[in-house]
């Protein structure tokens, strides 16, 4: 890649980073606002369970101001430094805990994204190239049904099959009982989320529509006319860009699905932690999760913008 091609990309990237930062700021405002709107003194909730003396100390130490933007500023300052507070339930600091379990959720989310793509892409490409064949109709209808299946019930089916047919047990504790098949356990939740997350039919439809549209473009006709391999010309606009766009767009969706799947499999991840936090009204934890999740979504989006800018010559001209 020539240097002259990298510079304009870097310029666009600077702008994208700024936008991302602005959005994350907005995210933090939303999260903080929900906290503020909760009944009761939010600070009380944060300090719940601690002795009155330490509460007083914390208040003084925080220099809690009486204006909401003052409190927001104080809170934001701590967040930016990595201090997300401590869990009300366990007392453990939030961010390190999130980092610990977040990896599992990352693994689950990215893995299922990949699996969904692996299923969706061949069907979409086949449908775009070959039009409406009976095989395609069957696949599309099957995808619709699979996407409408409640993922938690599907999880139970899979667990049942694994217990009774593969005798892999106990799956529910998230720990491997049989060491030699341990790696397989980790694939099961990915399989469940990857197939039944509800994104499958939409992915197929969108990829197929985009690829069809590109294949009908004038420049593809020119490529055919000059005997060049069509896929090489259709790849960027018909595949790479839609796939990356969809990937980044579906990350929030899959994170939500992860909350449910982690419940079914008792998977130690951010999703299960979020569920627990909602039950306990454990504010620091749930706020931290919301922030981390949003940050994850926005990084995915940023990456997609990078790919788009690198591929699209018009993008870097500003």
């Amino acid at each position, binding site marked *: 890649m020539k240097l002259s091609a990298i510079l304009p990309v870097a310029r666009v990237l600077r702008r994208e980073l700024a936008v991302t930062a602005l959005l994350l700021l907005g995210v933090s405002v939303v999260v903080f606002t929900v906290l503020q709107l909760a009944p009761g003194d939010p600070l009380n909730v944060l300090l719940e369970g601690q002795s009155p003396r330490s509460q007083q100390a914390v208040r003084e130490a925080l220099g809690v101001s009486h204006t909401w933007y003052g409190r927001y500023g104080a809170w934001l300052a701590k967040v930016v430094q990595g201090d997300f507070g401590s869990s009300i339930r366990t007392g453990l600091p939030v961010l390190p805990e999130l980092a610990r379990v977040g990896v599992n959720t990352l693994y689950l989310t990215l893995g299922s994204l990949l699996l969904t793509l692996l299923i969706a892409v061949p069907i979409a490409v086949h449908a775009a190239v*070959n*039009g409406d064949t009976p095989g395609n109709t069957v696949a599309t209808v099957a995808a619709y049904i699979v996407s409408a299946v409640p993922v938690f019930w599907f999880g139970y089916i899979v667990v049942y099959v694994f217990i009774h047919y593969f005798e892999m047990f106990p799956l529910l504790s998230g720990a491997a009982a049989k060491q030699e098949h341990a790696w397989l356990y980790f694939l099961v939740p990915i399989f469940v989320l990857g197939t039944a997350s509800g994104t499958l039919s939409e992915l197929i439809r969108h990829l197929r529509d985009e690829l069809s549209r590109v294949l009908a*473009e*004038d*420049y593809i*006709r*020119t*490529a*055919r*006319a*000059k*005997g*060049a391999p069509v896929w090489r*010309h259709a790849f*960027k*606009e018909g595949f790479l860009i839609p796939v990356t766009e969809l990937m980044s767009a579906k990350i929030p969706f899959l994170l939500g699905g992860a909350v449910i799947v982690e419940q079914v499999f008792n998977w130690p991840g951010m999703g299960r932690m979020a569920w627990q936090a909602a039950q306990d009204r454990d504010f620091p934890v749930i706020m931290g999760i919301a922030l981390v999740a949003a940050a994850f979504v926005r990084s995915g989006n940023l990456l997609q913008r990078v790919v788009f800018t690198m*591929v*699209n*010559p*018009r993008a870097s001209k500003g």
Partner: protein
Amino acid sequence: MSGPLLSIENLRTYFYSRAKRAFIRSVDGASLDVARGETLGVVGESGSGKTVTALSAAGLVTAAPGVIGGRITLQSNGTARELLDGLERYVRVEEEDGRVVAVEKDERGWRRHAEALMAGVRGKEIAMIFQNPRAALNPYSTVGNQLVETIRLHTGVKGEREAKERAIAWLERVRIDSPRLRFDNFPFGMSGGMCQRAMIAMALSAEPSLLVADEPTTGLDATIQSRIVELLGDLKEETGTATLLISHDISVIQRLSDRVAVMYGGTVVESGRATEVLARDAPARHPYTEALLEAIPSAEAIRNKSYLRAIEGDVLDTIEVPRGCRFYGRCNKVTDAIRERCAGLEPPLAEVSSGHKVRCWLYPTKT
């Protein structure tokens, strides 16, 4: 090696409108010849089927049902290639009363077979340029790279540096300024005229036997149009490539063509030498051609500020093709003697003088 370079016989290319549940008979029995080194201009209104004929010859019709009948022969390098050979196996046409009412097509089989037939022909023997040149070039790739791709595919030049030099030479040949800089331009950064020059370079760099030019000047500014026509004329002399030139612009056809074919309603209604067909007063010509020529305002007409002579009626709806002559509804030369025949029976394309054919009941056939 005798016979024309490209011979299209009785081509039928149909499309299907799902909204109307009816066939669109874009090309309904068209026959054309292009001889080696000559330029055949195909002229007609939009909807006459001229573009679809060109696309069918290049094997670029992808919509269904597509090409359903006819014969296309390409004679080059000593071999004669049947470009529609064996495709009848995949298409079954049901007719009623001389009219197609149903078509069954095995699309995948047809496509596979057609691709096999056209491999090595498309781009190499038959090269094509299109209207709307900026849209016809890949926006994600530089102009130079697209040229290099053609060169490496179809000429003996495989090395990247060599191909690049060849590409730059071609850019220069089509009179693009600063070719070395333009090599790295993307299509969106170039004007329409420049894009068209680049596309011409891309097509000719493969050294094809036949260049199919579909409305190469449409959509460009008037002055640029003139330059492109000039360029095409010069290149024709330099390279000796035969050209199938499609345009609705008669002046372009006039300037570049050796022979002319006039299409209407999906068939050829007149063909012959350009000088004969497009002459101001000719002894025998199709009423449609005459109307087309009359529609061009002459210098005198402009001076006198007289009304434009439009052709009455609307372009033929290719879904409801009439029984008799296709031009009957708009023809102002029908006499009572032939009226019945015009209304009921389609006239054949018959010779009225050497090399000049007309499809009209006004002219008795010369056997």
